[in-house]
């Protein structure tokens, strides 16, 4: 009873839970709305019991001044990628970069480096494939464009980690803003272009120069990169701000189902409920964990075959080749949902590593996220003005080429790029002198 009251109180104070409740209030039926609080409470209570049973909660230690005087000798690398925001029809992305913020507080000479580890302007994907196969449906076209952008960002971030490993950097920690292993299913769709030979060779030198076209597809290239990253000598973590799914809870329940502690019927029923109420790891763990507490990592299979998008895809079998991911959570702040910690290996020094993540997050006491990732996020982000400039540059270059070559395909592409959305509401002329 005390537990129930405690959790109910926490729910009332829980911001992300409240946001989800509002979302449900808008989209879900009245019955769902009424049941939301009660169901969430019950799921949280059950999850807490299982977590306690599995002895997954650890208390982390953080004393500001003491922590930093001990850890000032550590070299940390924070990585994030940025893609331009302008929409352009092409085998885009046009401009993309991944940045690293490398810092060693007690360094005698230079304590910090901001590095544009990977920069690219132009077509990352091979134009010989599906570049000119425009889809008539604008929506589909945009979907593909977004996938290309995401794919490019993910591959650039992975390539940056690979680069640091290849250069034999002596990091104590390496952190990536976002999941260390992204879900690759969206890129298995038919028609998704392969990377250029040049791009793959430059990003992943360990991929054979004589490799086939298939080897340059996102899925294969990314798999190779992850396998390489898994062998890194320094610990690498992907940090995710908020979880939109419930991989930890679902896997925990699954493990208990396998052990026979939960019946198949109960397992299926609770998974259905979690889906119905859009309950995520963040919601549940925000209630369960107190500030400074963490959950030990669980091994999770991220690439699940049979997902609707990829069902029947040629890549379905490939999914099993991807390494499993260790997922843990740290509640860094009273005000925020726990952050998700991903690694490809079980952390060798779990407590110390998690305490380091907590310490770096305490420097952003309200946001509760490692400050180094916040720094590199600002550094790697491609500002609007840069996006616009690159778009203009690209369009002009393309048109010149088209006129020079008199190639019908290129001309039609150039015309389409230049005319696309030029009359959209966003581009309406502004009254007076535009500033």
């Amino acid at each position, binding site marked *: 009873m005390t537990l129930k009251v405690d959790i109910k109180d926490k729910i009332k104070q829980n911001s992300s839970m409240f946001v989800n409740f509002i979302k449900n209030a808008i989209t879900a039926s009245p019955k769902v709305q009424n049941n939301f609080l009660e169901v969430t409470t019950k799921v949280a209570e059950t999850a807490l019991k299982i977590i306690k049973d599995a002895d997954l909660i650890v208390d982390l230690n953080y*004393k*500001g*001044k003491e922590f*930093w*005087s001990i*850890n*000032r000798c550590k070299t*940390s690398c924070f990585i994030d990628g940025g893609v331009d925001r302008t929409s352009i029809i092409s085998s885009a992305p046009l401009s993309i970069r991944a940045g690293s*913020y490398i*810092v060693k*507080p*007690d360094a005698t000479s230079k*304590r*910090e480096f*901001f590095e544009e580890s990977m920069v690219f302007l132009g077509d990352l994907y091979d134009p010989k494939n599906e570049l000119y196969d425009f889809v008539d449906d604008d929506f589909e076209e945009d979907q593909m464009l977004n996938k290309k952008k995401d794919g490019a960002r993910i591959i650039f971030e992975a390539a940056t980690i690979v680069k640091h490993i290849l250069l034999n950097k002596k990091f104590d920690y390496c952190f990536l803003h976002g999941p260390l292993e992204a879900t690759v299913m969206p890129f298995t769709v038919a028609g998704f272009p392969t990377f250029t030979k040049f791009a793959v060779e430059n990003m992943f030198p360990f991929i054979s120069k004589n490799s086939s076209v298939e080897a340059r597809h996102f899925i294969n290239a990314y798999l190779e990169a992850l396998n390489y990253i898994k062998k890194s000598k320094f610990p690498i973590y992907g940090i995710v701000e908020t979880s939109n799914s419930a991989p930890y809870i679902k896997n925990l329940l699954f493990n208990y189902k396998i052990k026979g502690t939960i019946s198949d019927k109960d397992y299926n029923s609770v998974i259905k409920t979690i889906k119905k109420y859009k309950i995520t790891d963040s919601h549940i763990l925000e209630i369960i964990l107190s500030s400074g507490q963490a959950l030990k990592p669980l091994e999770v299979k991220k690439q699940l075959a049979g997902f609707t998008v990829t069902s029947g895809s040629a890549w379905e079998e490939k999914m099993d080749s991807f390494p499993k991911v260790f997922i843990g959570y740290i509640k860094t702040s009273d005000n925020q949902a726990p952050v998700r910690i991903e690694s490809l290996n079980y952390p060798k020094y779990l407590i110390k590593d998690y305490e380091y993540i907590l310490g*770096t997050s*305490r*420097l*952003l*006491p*309200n*946001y509760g996220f490692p*400050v*180094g990732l*916040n*720094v590199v996020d*600002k*550094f790697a982000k491609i500002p609007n003005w840069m996006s616009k400039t690159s778009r203009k540059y690209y369009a002009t270059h393309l048109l010149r080429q088209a006129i020079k070559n008199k190639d019908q395909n290129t001309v039609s592409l150039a015309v389409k790029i230049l005319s696309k959305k030029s009359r959209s509401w966003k581009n309406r002329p502004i009254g007076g002198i535009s*500033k």
Partner: protein
Amino acid sequence: MSKLNNWKAIGTVLGETDINEYHFSLKNYKAKKGDIVTTASRLPSTDGTVIPVTVWGKISSIERFNAFFPAEAAQELTNEDIDIRDTILPTTKDELRCKVIILGYTEDGKEKISKLLPLNYPVMPAAIVKYPSSKDVEELFISDLDSSHPISIGNLLARKDVEIKIDGDNLISRHISVWGMSGSGKTVFVRRILTELLNLKYPSFVLDIHGDYLGFVQKQKKYFPDNKVKLFYPNLSVRAEDKEIVYTLIDKLGNTLTDPQRDFLNSLLEKIKYEGGSLLQYIKLLNVKAREFASSGSASFKNVKPASMFVVARSLRIVSKKLENMEQTNARHRRKMSHLKFEELPDSATEPEKIISKGQMSILYLRGYENLPASAIVSIVLENLFRHRQEASEEIAPFFTVIEEAHNFIPSRSENKDDIPSVDTIRKVISEGRKFGTGVMIISQRPSRVDETIASQCNSQVVFRIVNQRDQRATTRDSETLSNDDAKQLPNLANGQGIISGQIVNYSLPVQIKFDEKLINDDIGNENFIDTVENWDDKESVKLRKKFAKDFADINEIDSRRAN
């Protein structure tokens, strides 16, 4: 300009520019506020060609920010007492953004740096900003000043090796205001100017309230052997024509009079003819006469009651007493400096050449005098001297007047002291003085209390540290060349640092005034009062008084005891 290639690149022009200002991103530690910078540009010329030019500007403000340092991190650092250098927070990503006020442009490809011309086409965004050599900046200032009598006043605040000169001709023929808090450097600047004027043999007349300029008298033989430095004390002598001033003095210094009493005073002034000479004697004479009329009656004052006459007589006695006190105070101060030769101020009406003469500095030592009598003295002297310059005979040479504590002589209308005598005189000298070579320098620590019309006619300004916001507003209100960015800098200026602007320099420049230490008045002690008290010993007279006081206290105590 070939020189441009030798100058160091320090930044890049940002986004939008216009013909008055631009912003640029600055390399760390490569320039400061107040520095002169250049950028190469191209302009359409009058004949339709495009010419390469160098645009000169002054850094008027610098912003520094670290976009990578979140505010909430500062909160944690403070709460937990963490040194940022121990953490992973970035400390090297500061960005510097400077605002540049454009001074003008010079044409490239010329041997010498020419005079600055007003820019009429915006600076090119993304152009490189350079840091010109000190020699070239100095060359620009001299060339731009275009003065036959440049006066050195110090160096550019941001660059010690750039000497700043002002146009001496503009200084003495026009007017200049000097504002700043007490101890901010006003007197240092005035001493500098007076030194240069002595070197030029240009006559000056200084109204010295506190004895700040007595150093010139002390050191005259050593440093100005070819000049005369005269030290005068006021002589309250008035002429018959100055009847209005006499009336104002009695009216303001004495008791408040009713209308019939004022009528009597006016009639008294008419009746008792004044032939000039000591004002004090004249007021005493008026007092005696007023008493006589009150006691015996007079056919001339049939309608005035004796009681009213007595009130006027009493008021005259108060005025004469006050004037006597002021004279005595002034004399006491003079006696303290017995080694200095004080002379009675000659009659400015009949002997102006004794006050204004080639190569002479005349100091009128006004210490001890209240505002009103001081104002009356100044009004009479300046009126006479100005008249001598106005007359065709030109009995005296052009001269330069320095008015210390100007708010006492030319108070603002809001002070309700508009009728003090010196206001009209100084207004006249300021508005007509240019034609007759009677330049004026007004100095005050409270510019907001100075007459707005007079202040606005000073077309050059030197402003030192000012903290009071009303005074800050007054400085920008009265100046055509002082910008708001300059005004923001005023509270932070150190001693001897000022912003000089107007016709004597053409644009506003932050300057460190050269300190002529040798000209400090040795008789004005330091202001270390704590040490003074520490070494304090009562005078014998005081010790004796204290002893007697104790004896009397003992007597009183015994006396008040109860008999039992």
